[in-house]
């Protein structure tokens, strides 16, 4: 399982990569493994504005539906159409080609509240132990 250093993580297993005032958001390697083969993504419209921790879409495997939550506040500026058309990309490359949405951040103050790679790795370890 990988935990890229440069990303920021949520307890609900989303990640965000910050590039200036744009955040790219996806689900983690651990999340895609837990879900199994992803067959459907429901993504928001470009222009939609979310607060941090809002539900911004859903990801579905054959068996289950999971809600997705925004790590930060902002406006959706791009949706990964390739992933919507072929959700298996999210399984294959969750931190790369399998990204979900890009948001223009409302503030740069929220990112600091998210988990670092190291914190998230131990959080996942704990979660696995509790099962």
């Amino acid at each position, binding site marked *: 399982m990988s935990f890229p250093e440069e990303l920021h993580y949520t307890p*609900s*297993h*989303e990640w965000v990569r910050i590039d200036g005032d744009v955040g790219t958001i996806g*689900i983690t390697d651990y*999340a895609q493994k*837990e*879900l*199994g*083969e992803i*067959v*459907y993504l*429901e993504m928001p419209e470009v222009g939609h504005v979310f607060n941090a921790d809002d539900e911004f879409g*859903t*990801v*579905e*495997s*054959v*068996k*289950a*539906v*999971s*809600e*997705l*939550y925004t790590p930060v506040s902002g406006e959706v500026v791009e949706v990964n159409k390739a992933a919507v058309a072929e959700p298996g990309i999210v399984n294959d490359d969750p931190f790369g080609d399998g990204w979900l949405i890009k948001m223009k951040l409302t503030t740069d103050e929220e990112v600091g509240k998210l988990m670092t790679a190291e914190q998230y790795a131990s959080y996942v370890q704990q*979660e696995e132990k509790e*099962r």
Partner: protein
Amino acid sequence: MSAPARATTLKRTPLYDLHRELGAKLIDFGGWEMPVQYSGILEEHRAVRERVGIFDVSHMGEFEFTGEGALASLQWLTPNDVARLTDGRCHYSAFLTERGTFVDDLLVYRKAADAYMLVVNASNTPKDFDWAKARARGNVHVDDASERYALLAVQGPRAAGLVSRLCAEDPSGLAYYSFLETSVLGTPALVSRTGYTGEDGFELYLAPQGAARVFRGLLEEGRGDGATPCGLGARDTLRLEARMALYGNDIDDTVTPWEADLGWIVKMKKGDFLGRGALERQKAEGVPRKLVGFEMVDRGIARHGYPAHTAQGEGVVTSGTHSPTLGKPIGLAMLPAGAAGIGTEFEVDIRGRNAKARVVETPFYKRPKEAR
């Protein structure tokens, strides 16, 4: 991402350790700790459609009806005509309430004129046993034999070749819904040409002590065939493509065989049976709602329990998934009879969003002729 909850104190099949060893993901299925998948639902589904898959379904319940009153008793307890069965044949049937609704759906095997085996759904086993025991008539002994059987399903176009190589007697000549009592890899086995996937295949009722050996043996012998261990996840997508009902989802004690499009298991001419009066009345009055197959017109996967809005009133999605074979969402819904015609459009409330769906012909998948 939201996480699923977990449960405790689950029953295990004789294959539990093997599932762990094979890296299965285990879930609570009706009180049983069962493999939902090994390599992945889509891959396992494909293995069964194209090659051969091996399932542990030992959680299913088995009852034995013996004695000279067994036939009469089963004629009373089930709607299909047990008198039509000969030795070595089985059929699909049910236990019905006085209201004509499903207590459970099941298989009836005739081993001999005075010896039958019934196979019931795992989570219904205690309920069914009490129900049958209280209503069995005459000189019959009803026994819950569930602990004495492990059950493996070997399903797919290469199942017959694989099973025949391990079986003491060649079962590849068996007709669909026939069985023989023989042995597999030295383990006593009832080998039945039945299944819940829409493919050719067998179900092997085994002495529990031999089950793990047979499961391993099938995997080893079937390596060249691409034999794949399969979990309940693929079993569910396979059965839904084949439009086989799942108790607790598509049928339950509020649904009659007429409503579920399972009228063929009801033989009104055979004489009296439990639920007959109610079924007669419903047939005369007309069926108020029907279980239909549907595809999504709009994007989205309609799942079990989602409300359905039709021009004729409210309905509900009873099963829904992504069909691995068709590559699109499919499902079954209980709709008002007036909205059940092929081609009728309706809306499914997918977590607050209304998405259009259309009633279609079923089964969604039918195996190619040459594979039969």
